[in-house]
């Protein structure tokens, strides 16, 4: 699984679990439910503020990566 696919799958999974929680980025507020939809639509804003940093952290932190894999129930 590529890092981008892994990041999107993980964001979708967490958003499904907590649809009413919100994410705030500057002046923009999105519920996790809205975030899920935007992630599925390939929204550029979500890509920039969340998916790219998510991929960066997956690359930099093995611990983070392992925990995400456990949440998704996948093995590399």
């Amino acid at each position, binding site marked *: 699984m590529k890092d981008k696919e892994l990041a999107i799958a*993980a*964001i979708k999974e*967490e*958003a499904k679990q*907590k649809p009413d*929680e*919100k*994410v*705030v*980025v*500057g*002046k923009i*507020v999105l519920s*996790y439910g809205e*975030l899920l939809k935007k992630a599925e639509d390939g929204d550029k804003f979500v890509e920039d*503020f*969340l998916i790219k*940093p*998510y991929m960066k*952290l997956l690359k930099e*932190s093995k*611990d*983070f990566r392992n*925990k*995400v894999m456990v*949440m998704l129930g996948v093995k590399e």
Partner: protein
Amino acid sequence: MKARVVAPVFDDITPYSYDWSRDVLGWLKDKGYITEDFSNDAIPRARVENGIDSVDLFVFYDHGSEDALWGSQDEAVIDLDNYNLLAGKTVYTMACLSARSLGVKLWQLKTVFWGYYEPFSFTTDALSEFKHFANSGIWYRLQSATWKDAFEASKELGYALSSKLSQTGKFIASVLMRQDTDALRCYDATAPSTSCTFRALALKLFGRSGWFITKTRTLATLLFGIGFGISLHDFCDALFKAGGYKEILSPQGGYFGFILMLIAFLLEFIDFLQVIRR
């Protein structure tokens, strides 16, 4: 010491930053600061500007942009037209993006600036962790840490909180906490970074004053140096043709002209350095 805490409320997000600022206000009072609290509503620019001279610490918890801190949807309380009011003070803010331009301008005026280079982001499933991080710098500082130590401690805290959030399954919060930590800047602990090689060189040579050296001044200095060199070379060449090295080494009126030009250049340069170091 006097602190002014500005925490406007005017949309769905600002109640969070207002709430976080209450802890800071309490800590400042506990530490004996005379505090002014401008909060819980849209705050007009004129109110923030009034009496700001007597303030030592300016705390701002609300929206920001590259060159402004916003008191309402359509009015900045601090921007590039009035930022000089904060010269020499300390500015502590969680405002988005303000470290990009406003923070650099303030640092040039010997203001300590604490803020963010990217949008500040957070999630509602980890509000206490984000509040902890946003408030940490002023907390460490009030515990007598230097700004440099406070900055390093806050960075360490941010990375630790990011790790903690991932351990509890809050992965989105963990990523955003990491982003916020990376975006944190303290212009006192460190100088603003620059991608320009010449600016970096100027900062290395002249410190904070290096930000005031413009492209025009650099070009003017370079052209003066080249022109001075060409003139001196041609003058000496003419003397050599007239009488060889003996003629060059003998007192010449032209040398006084060159010396006067050089003195004038150095005096102007020293004056420039004194002005920008004020």
